[in-house]
């Protein structure tokens, strides 16, 4: 693989990690959803670039799925949900954004440290895609752990899934059927989460999952 192709895929994967950090930084819900859309868009670009360089036309379908579902449909539905629940102006109280970002940096360093030696025999593009994909996954997990608003947790989950996608497309020969089933399972999970969001909202008048900790049953 020549220099510029590697540089472009490196750049796209790097932007994906950067957008993950932007999610950790953003505390307002609607801008957060915009970041999620951008995240999925960059993923689609990255997958399309992989399809181009690997001569694997079925990856274009993956890119289209990422673009259609994750960059347009899911953020749109989430936005409507947030607006309907009347929490679109809410500012989340997150403790220690700086600390969270440092933890995120540590996770990136960890995934590089783990993945680069492990994939020593693979191609450079695959190696860095997998290493950066692992960091996207870990940052998504971190996002789910540190946020208390259920919508932000969904966003974390979605970005995690994007990371998995990046890793899968970097490695050659992932069958399309796997990709489609993963996409649909995520969609199903998304619907279930959406229903849960409204249920939580109905029960507790908030989507702050902190109230679930103190809840001991017996409401109604």
């Amino acid at each position, binding site marked *: 693989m020549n*220099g*510029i192709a*590697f*540089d*472009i895929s*490196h*750049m796209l994967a*790097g*932007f994906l*990690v*950067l957008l993950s*950090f932007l999610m950790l*930084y953003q505390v307002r819900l609607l801008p957060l959803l915009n970041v999620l859309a951008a995240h999925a868009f960059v993923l689609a670009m990255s997958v399309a670039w992989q399809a181009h360089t690997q001569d694997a036309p079925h990856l274009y379908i993956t890119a289209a799925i990422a673009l259609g579902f994750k960059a347009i449909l899911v953020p749109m539905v989430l936005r409507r949900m947030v607006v309907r629940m009347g929490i679109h102006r809410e500012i989340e109280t997150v403790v220690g*954004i*700086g600390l969270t*970002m*440092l933890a*995120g*940096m540590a996770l*990136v*360093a960890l995934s*590089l440290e783990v993945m*680069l030696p492990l994939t020593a025999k693979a191609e*450079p593009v695959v*190696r*860095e895609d997998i*290493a*950066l994909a692992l960091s996207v996954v870990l940052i998504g997990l971190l996002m789910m752990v540190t946020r208390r608003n259920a919508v932000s947790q969904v966003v974390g989950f979605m970005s995690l899934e994007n990371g998995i996608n990046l890793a899968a497309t970097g490695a050659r020969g992932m069958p399309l059927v796997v990709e489609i089933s993963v996409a649909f399972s995520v969609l199903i999970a998304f619907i279930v989460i959406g229903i849960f969001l409204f249920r939580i909202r109905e029960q507790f008048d908030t989507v702050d999952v902190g109230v679930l900790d103190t809840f001991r049953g017996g409401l109604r």
Partner: protein
Amino acid sequence: MNEPASLWLLLVQFAQMSLVICLAPLLTGLVRKVKARLQRRRGPPLLQPYRDLRRLMLKQVVLAENASWLFRVVPYLMLSITWVAAALVPTFATGLMFNWTGDLIAIAGLLGAARFAQALAALDIGTSFGGIGSSREVMFASLAEPATMMIILCVALVAGSTQLSTIADHMANGAVGLRVSLALALIALIIVALAENARIPVDNPATHLELTMVHEAMVLEYSGRHLAMIDLAAFLKLLLYLSLIGCIFFPFGIAQAGAGPEYYLIGLAFYVMKLMLGGVLLGVFEMSIAKLRVFRVPNFLGAGFMLGLLGVLLLYVSRGM
């Protein structure tokens, strides 16, 4: 090196030194003008900063009773340090006479020294404004400096040197390719530059509201020529950061070492264009964003640090292949 050549180099170097100090007030005037036009005001004329400086220079200095020698020395110190730092950054040409001193770390150190002097002077007269101003300034600086170090590390890893002249040559040659790390370093440098120059998301240069001011709180007690010097130093600092961004990330048209006078003129035209573009962009950016709460600033600067660190990490990945 023969005699006329070194004389010529010295001349160009002095041209650069006078260029930065002549252009600095104009740049600030441009930013103010852009902001005013975007607010649908007419705004002060472009040359207003020069007039302000002249007026201040002619005015009598009013000193606090308990001001020590430090308070009087610091404006001279700040102006000279900032001027030296600004003159070290390659503006329209690389390979000038004193370019070997134009090291990124040296510039960071010079700016740190100027800031230290200013914070001390603000504490000197013992007013409460000086106290909050300098404590905030030092807090921001302690957050901005790690970010600066990360940016320097990132750029130096790419270019293989911390000398600005070498870096600009390396970047101008186009051998760098497409590097996401450099994009991250650029954003981090913009964040640091906004914080260091007391621009809007961090500090409002046009306010005297005690809750929010940082830079203005420190210079509140200065008047007359002292204030003129501090203002000029602030103008120079803005110019310095814009030239730094220009010479590291956009070294188009910069004249290389040993080029003829016509290349210097082209480089000069490019440099002025870059400054104008930077000034307009800064004005637009400042108009489109609200000032951050003081307690949110660490997050903002932390983001800058994080970007720099991420850039270094990504560089490590692509190097490790």
